[in-house]
């Protein structure tokens, strides 16, 4: 059976959820071979094996943390040469897309980014994408070389599928370009204790109607009552009320949770692009004409400062 390379996104050996989703998709096409790089690479093996990786190729070197993107491209290219896979799958993070693109160019392959689904096809893997602010769905495939495809978080379920997951050291020779862009400093993000925005099952977002950084506390309280991630519209981020890392929309994160709760968000195209594939959408907004109400399964026309705290209290009561 053909092998499928899966690029592992991990933090010091802790595998992030989108990689496990990739393993689910990879198994539809062939046998997943994972590639884990940098500090803690070998520690990923047990988790990857549980989810279907037949092999885990690892390489640790300081270059992966000290220089931007290119060392990882060099390694993935080495893995591609070693394995001759049927496809290469990479998580659709900003960095993942850059790695995938440079790899594709080097190996003479086409690239598809931001797939939301993947299935085997007669002419290679068929990727589903959601385009034009999610108003269209397309089916695409790579027509030249080894398909290189990046996949968005939440595109597949994480499934247990025990496999060998045998660890093999990958031999990597860094290119001259590898040390071109130096990472001279790194400030890790402080953990909020809430789920990762793109990976969360429930997202609670606030917009212009929240009207101030201090008022985001009521959005956070609702999120915490549901174990949800917190999002913000571009208007709220541009106003400085909430960090850009939490922005949902075209220039922020695109999310597709089971439940999306929009509070004080009008629903401009910029925002819709990042959330309209959510399974269930609810909104609270003062303006009955707000375009967000065209998307909702349930909407409340009212003042979010009345509705949201009452909702939070009621959820707490119901949860006991």
């Amino acid at each position: 059976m053909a092998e499928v390379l899966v690029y592992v996104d991990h933090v010091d050996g802790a595998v992030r959820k989108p990689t496990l989703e990739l393993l689910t998709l990879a198994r539809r096409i062939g046998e997943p071979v994972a590639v884990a790089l940098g500090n803690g690479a070998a520690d990923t093996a047990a988790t990857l094996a549980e989810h279907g990786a037949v092999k885990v190729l690892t390489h640790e070197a300081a270059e992966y943390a000290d220089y931007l993107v290119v060392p990882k491209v060099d390694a993935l290219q080495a893995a591609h040469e070693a394995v001759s896979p049927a496809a290469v799958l990479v998580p659709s993070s900003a960095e993942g897309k850059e790695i995938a693109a440079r790899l594709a160019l080097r190996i003479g392959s086409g690239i598809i980014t931001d797939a939301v689904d993947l299935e085997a096809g007669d002419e290679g893997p068929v990727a589903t994408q959601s385009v034009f602010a999610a108003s269209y769905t397309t089916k695409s495939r790579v027509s030249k070389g080894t398909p290189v495809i990046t996949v968005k978080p939440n595109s597949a379920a994480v499934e247990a599928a025990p496999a060998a997951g045998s660890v093999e050291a990958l031999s990597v020779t860094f290119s001259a370009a590898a040390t071109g862009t130096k990472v001279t400093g790194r400030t890790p993000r402080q953990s909020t204790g809430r789920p990762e925005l793109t990976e969360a099952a429930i997202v609670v977002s606030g917009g212009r109607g929240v009207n101030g950084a201090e008022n985001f506390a009521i959005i956070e309280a609702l999120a915490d009552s549901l174990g949800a991630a917190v999002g913000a519209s571009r208007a709220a981020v541009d106003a400085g009320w909430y960090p850009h890392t939490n922005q949902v929309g075209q220039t922020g994160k695109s999310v597709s949770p089971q439940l999306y709760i929009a509070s004080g968000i009008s629903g401009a195209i910029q925002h819709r692009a990042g959330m309209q594939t959510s399974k269930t959408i609810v909104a609270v907004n003062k303006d009955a004409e707000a375009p967000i109400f065209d998307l909702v399964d349930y909407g409340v026309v009212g003042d979010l400062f009345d509705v949201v705290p009452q909702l939070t209290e009621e959820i707490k009561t119901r949860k006991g």
Partner: protein
Amino acid sequence: MSLRIVVTVKYVPDATGDRHFADDLTVDRDDVDGLLSELDEYAVEQALQISENSDDDVEITVLTVGPEDAKDALRKALSMGADKAIHVEDDDLHGTDAIGTSLVLAKAVEKAGYDLVISGMASTDGTMGVVPALLAERLGVPQVTLLSEVSVEDGTVKGRRDGDAASEQLEASLPAVVSVTDQSGEARYPSFKGIMAAKKKPVQSWDLSDLDIDEDEVGLDNAWTAVDAAAERPARTAGTIVKDEGEGGKQLAAFLAERKFV
């Protein structure tokens, strides 16, 4: 010292318009008004700021690959303050994918001469966000991408890249390819004077033969990816909308409970 900056820009269909696909499954450009991709305005802005903060003699060239109308995007960038423009236009370019676009841009940037290329973080139509990385790969120069802060001094470009897990400080020697995010700083509006001045600024037109690119390296038929189908997403079925009469929060909680979220 002089510093030659090339800003790559894209002419895109207005995201607030009713975007759709043409019969050949390329982006339909006829039925929706086009404009300079909003995210590229940030690239033009950062080029202008680098110029304003520099003691060097800085020349800013805006470069686009696109149909005749794409000149509008160049004019906008020129009216913001760029010095000159290059328009790569050729009928054989229709349907070119990101890999092919990066080839055309790389050849054009090399022909124009550059110390620094600045791009936006992604286009607002294709939204892949991979062209700056591809361009760096093709040119064989450092990639310093997705910056929310950028500065150039003594032949070195520095910037801050805000990632999901960490915020990173980056540094590379020129020549280099930079991309900037929408967090890099509000783009200026063209002044009346700027708009008038832009009309007199030079816009060069190049076709594929000017760039030594064969027609079989670009275009829809030579793309390394193929779109087989495109379907409009069905409209969401109309939901329940209630007016808060004092119980809105409780009603919403009941709905969430019914859907098993609580």
